[in-house]
């Protein structure tokens, strides 16, 4: 047991192979997150990110190991952990407002209809969907559906926000605006967030820590990257920071090559239970030539 807010301890997931036997998506997976922290997980398609998120949500229970939140093993879904689904998962027979209100009224069962709708509208406005609140999901674009999913998750004011590629279907402008809005809300409320993304810049802007997952099957946590950028960063000028390129190159390097080769050349001293934490930053004057400084 660690004293971390969320800790994933040796979880495993296997699927039966068509011909018999089992494919191990991952096993003995360990990592943890601090309270109020924003973690991103990156890794190639199919490596098992959604599966990890489902374990944290409690939608799936791990075959081995356990996921712990606040000292309690996760045994099922909870209103404390809101999920933004990769597939939107909107209820097609309800309007935008109906979808968000459904979540709100599930969270606060004794609220009146007016209270519920007013609260839901607040979050619909935050994601820029005011004016479309009476539309049905089928009348929305993919990006608008994603935003309803974001509003629905934020509206229940969970302790933990679990997001599965929430911004992937958005145009650059909307995506930027929403990333800022979500980051602002999270910083304000101190909510803990776990997000899956394929976008390195998105991870650098939003995340405090970035979990690197190697290719499946038998995916592993290669390392945890600490974001060296200042906490009060602004999206439009993250690339001006001296630390931006080192961390970006580090992540790109992982996605392009190390995610594939990591398994075959596991670094000496690698411990599954404590994946190495690295903090790629600009060359500090004192130690020239060293761009990846280990902190833990």
């Amino acid at each position: 047991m660690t004293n971390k807010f969320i800790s994933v301890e040796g979880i495993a997931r296997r699927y039966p192979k068509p011909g018999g036997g089992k494919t191990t998506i991952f096993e003995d997976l360990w990592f943890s997150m601090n309270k109020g922290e924003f973690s991103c997980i990156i890794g190639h398609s199919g490596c098992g990110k959604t599966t990890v998120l489902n374990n944290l949500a409690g939608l799936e229970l791990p075959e081995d190991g356990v996921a712990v939140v606040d000292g309690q093993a996760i045994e099922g879904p909870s209103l404390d952990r809101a999920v933004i689904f990769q597939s939107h998962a909107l209820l097609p027979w309800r309007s935008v407002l109906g979808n968000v209100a459904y979540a709100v009224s599930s969270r606060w069962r004794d609220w009146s209809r007016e209270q519920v709708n007013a609260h839901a509208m607040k979050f619909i406005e935050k994601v820029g969907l005011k004016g479309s609140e009476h539309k049905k999901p089928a009348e929305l674009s993919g990006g608008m559906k994603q935003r309803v999913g974001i509003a629905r998750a934020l509206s229940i004011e969970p302790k933990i926000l679990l997001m599965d590629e929430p911004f992937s279907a958005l145009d650059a402008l909307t995506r930027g605006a929403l990333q800022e809005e979500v980051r602002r809300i999270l910083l304000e409320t101190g909510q803990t967030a776990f997000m899956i993304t394929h976008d390195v810049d998105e991870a650098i802007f939003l995340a405090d820590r970035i979990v690197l997952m190697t290719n499946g099957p038998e995916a592993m946590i290669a390392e945890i990257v600490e974001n060296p950028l200042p906490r009060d960063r602004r999206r439009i000028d993250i690339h001006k920071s001296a630390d931006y390129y080192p961390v970006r190159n580090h992540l790109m390097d992982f996605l392009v090559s190390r995610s594939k080769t990591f398994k075959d050349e596991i670094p000496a001293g690698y411990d599954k239970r404590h994946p190495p934490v690295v903090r790629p930053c600009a060359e500090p004057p004192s130690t020239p030539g060293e761009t990846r400084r280990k902190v833990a």
Partner: protein
Amino acid sequence: MLASLNARAALLSLVIFFGFLLAWHIGVQGTKAVADMDPEYARLMGVTATQGKSAMPGPLDVGAQIWKHLNEPFYDRGPNDKGIGIQLAYSLGRVLLGYFLAVMLALPLGFLIGMSPLMSRAFDPFIQVMKPISPLAWMPLALYTIKDSNISAIFVIFICSVWPMLINTAFGVSAVRKEWLNVARTLEVPPLRKAFTIILPAAAPTIVTGMRISIGIAWLVIVAAEMLVGGTGIGYFVWNEWNNLSITNVIVAILVIGLMGMILDQTLAAVGRKLTYPE
């Protein structure tokens, strides 16, 4: 050319309709009166023989009969002479009652079967055997055990409408998308609320399709059932008029049966359209 598709289709329907009436009218016309027949013999034989007139009523006869029924749909002159409206009401009453009982059983049971793989497998053999049984095959058994022809007819309606609804409800419920159920799970929605706010609306289009199939079958079956048990109802009316050799009334009844069936079907179709959601 500028007329919409609907308008053109309506026009074509009218053309077909009047074309049919005309063909019918001509088809039942007699040849000219047979001149050299003994008038006494001709009187005995009636117009059918004397003028070569067909025994089949023409559209004008049927029209006149319809007009008569419309003027007096609900008269009651003893057990064998009731207005067509009364007979229709009897049939409709039986169908709706049997159908309502079937809904009361099929929806909850379908829910149970759809939600539980165990129940689904346990009930499957029974459903598979019971479903293909012609509802009329139950009639003797029903008459024997219930000893009331009216209730037996209702039972037959019940038994024939229950299967499509049961099967469709179970299928609709079991096919609810996992992601919607996951939404309910992450929101900690209690089971009853989940059943009414997620599963029911998600399965509603499939359920209503089953209900629509059922009402169609029920309406088909009631005519045959009433021919068997007799007494009242539109099916009995048809049979009775056949015994009276009133082909005109038989044709009128056929039209009425068709129209009523259409109304029942379209009502459920409208309900289905309301509940269908585009994805």
